């Protein structure tokens, strides 16, 4: 690696992958609970398993973003990190806080956890994805601010490239919008309204900027295409993201008690949200096709291309499927949403994290690329996980269509649980596909421990 301080990225990446494994294990528990309702009850009830599954995802993605930023920023700014010590300290604080939070979820009832952690001082718990106890939320803010301070200072003292500015914009946005998790008005409409300012404006707003910046960085490094060209693409993608994504928040405001015009605003703007993702796909392939060098790390290039395709499919196409208000009237909160959620998170944010990890990790371990043997294994894991997620998505989509039909669209609608029983076959198929995903993930982890002849450091 070019700068010594980039090394702080390594523990972040390792912890991220560890949490990824935990996330998938809890995903499998959850998937089984869909069909065997009392599996592991009362030790790990469904609501707890779900909380661990989603929170582990969010935390490991954040870990990956931070690690990626710590790796990328010194190289872009052409200077050592402002404070590697602060970065390491924050890593341990973040990891311990995450571990304690998960332990809290698993060991005591949620209401006890709330009472233990001062939820009565400021009530922020009990809301989907933002279940973390108050002290964890405060911890996240402290870690995020220290992290932003660290990388912003690095950029300020070094070279300011477009890519690092887009990344900073994304990361600052991430921190700012998280502050809405502390705002929990009694009025349920207002609660939901601002809840989406964290949830939606993260994944369909500022995170896309982080995604774009990481992709641009890895593409510059692996293809050797002129920075100018890549930066111009990045600007176009960022602009398209913001034009469509911000007011696109409206697609969550159809049925929560907000005024009716949101059905139009939300439909119109979110219908355009696939465009920036499509631009990303074209961008990734275009840059790889006009590459000026053959980078030895073929696995990283594969992950980058995969991000372009899968983000477009999962976020773009599967999002569009149910984004128009007249369609969403029938589909909201069904397995269609779950299908979209799985492929979008994997295609966009899991894959971009694995892209930057795949590119940076060998360099952090003192070589330009892993051995051929290790890369072949990594590419196997790519295909296993990607194909598994495609099938998980397809099975959930099928389950969702059936569910909409049986429970909502039919002339004689069935009760929720009766409809659930009738679509159990698809849940079983999703569970087995989930096992394939876990195998893919284990192959991925194993690829780090495979030796062989490695490419020398550049």
């Amino acid at each position, binding site marked *: 690696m070019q700068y010594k301080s980039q090394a702080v990225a390594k523990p972040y990446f390792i912890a991220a992958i560890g949490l990824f494994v935990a996330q998938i294990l809890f995903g499998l528990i959850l998937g089984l609970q869909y069909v065997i309702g009392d599996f592991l009850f009362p030790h790990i009830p469904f609501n707890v398993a779900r909380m661990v599954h989603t929170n582990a995802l969010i935390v490991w993605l954040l870990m990956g973003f931070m690690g990626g930023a710590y790796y990328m920023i010194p190289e872009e700014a052409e200077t050592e990190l402002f404070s590697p010590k602060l970065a390491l300290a924050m890593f341990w604080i973040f990891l311990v806080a995450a571990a304690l939070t998960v332990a809290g979820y698993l060991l005591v009832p949620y209401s006890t956890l709330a009472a233990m952690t001062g939820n009565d001082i400021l009530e922020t718990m009990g809301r989907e994805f933002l279940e973390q106890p108050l002290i964890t939320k405060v911890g996240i803010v402290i870690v995020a601010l220290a992290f932003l301070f660290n990388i912003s200072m690095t950029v300020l003292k070094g070279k300011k490239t477009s890519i690092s500015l887009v990344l900073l914009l994304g990361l600052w946005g991430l921190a700012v919008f998280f502050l809405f998790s502390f705002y929990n008005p009694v009025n349920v409409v207002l609660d939901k309204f601002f809840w989406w300012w964290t949830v939606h404006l993260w994944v369909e707003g500022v995170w896309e900027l982080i995604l774009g910046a990481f992709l641009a960085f890895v593409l510059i490094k692996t293809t050797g295409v*002129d920075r100018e*060209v890549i930066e*111009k*693409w990045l*600007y*176009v993608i960022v*602009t*398209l993201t913001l*034009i*469509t994504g911000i007011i696109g928040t409206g697609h969550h405001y159809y049925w929560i008690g907000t*005024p*009716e*015009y949101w059905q*139009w*605003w939300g*439909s*119109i*703007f979110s*219908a*355009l949200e696939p*465009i920036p993702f499509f631009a990303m796909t*074209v961008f990734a392939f*275009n840059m790889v*096709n*006009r590459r000026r060098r053959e980078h030895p790390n073929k696995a990283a290039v594969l992950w980058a291309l995969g991000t372009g395709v899968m983000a477009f499919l999962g976020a773009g196409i599967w999002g569009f499927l149910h984004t128009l208000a007249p369609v969403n009237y029938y589909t909201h909160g069904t397995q269609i949403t779950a299908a979209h959620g799985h492929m979008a998170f994997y295609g966009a944010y899991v894959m971009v994290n694995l892209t930057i990890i795949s590119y940076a990790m060998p360099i952090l371990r003192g070589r330009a690329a892993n051995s051929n043997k290790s890369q072949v294994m990594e590419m196997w894991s790519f295909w296993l996980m990607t194909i598994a997620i495609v099938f998980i998505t397809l099975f959930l989509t099928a389950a969702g269509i059936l569910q909409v039909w049986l429970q909502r669209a039919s002339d004689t609608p069935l009760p929720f649980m009766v409809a659930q029983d009738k679509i159990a076959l698809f849940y079983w198929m999703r569970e087995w596909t989930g096992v394939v995903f876990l195998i893919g993930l284990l192959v991925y982890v194993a690829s780090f421990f495979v030796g062989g002849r490695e490419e020398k450091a550049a």
Partner: protein
Amino acid sequence: MTDTSLALDPAEMPSARRLPGDLAIWVFILAEMLAFAVFFASYAFARSKDVEMFNFYQQTLDRNAGAFNTLLLVTGSWFVVLAVQAAHRDDSRAAARRIGLGFLCGAGFLTVKVFEYAAKFGAGISLSTNTFYMFYISLTFFHFMHVILGMVILAILWVKTRQGAYGSRDAHGLESGAAYWHMVDLLWIVLFPLVYVMR
């Protein structure tokens, strides 16, 4: 998008099919126009469901103000065309003056629009009054914001033109900004007849 997109330097293209301004601004303009196109199509769709209601409330709009605003924007665009021509003749002073006039036309548009809004909001009309007013307010408001953005761009161009940044050798940035300003104008030329006039 073609394979050559965003990689070709427009200066390298044969002059006959030279694209004025930066390719990136054209991608941006097309995206903006697509967003408005979807909005216009939604308007047409909603109107077809209740033509009478749309026609009835259309009569409450101030067509004279709209027509005057059209004149202002077209004139503003004309000034900006003259500014680009002046820049190509290396006459930065004339170019800056005309950009300034274009900016004033935009300011005039905003002023007229503010009075129009004041009258409507004063009468208690809001986004939730009915579907026609929802579209009227949304479309004109989104356009209003684009006029403001266009004016910010013109202001930047004015400063840079006065510093002599653009000339016969390179008017790239000026052309990019001018293209955006023309888009603001073009959108209004569709929006005004569609919402105010057509029945």
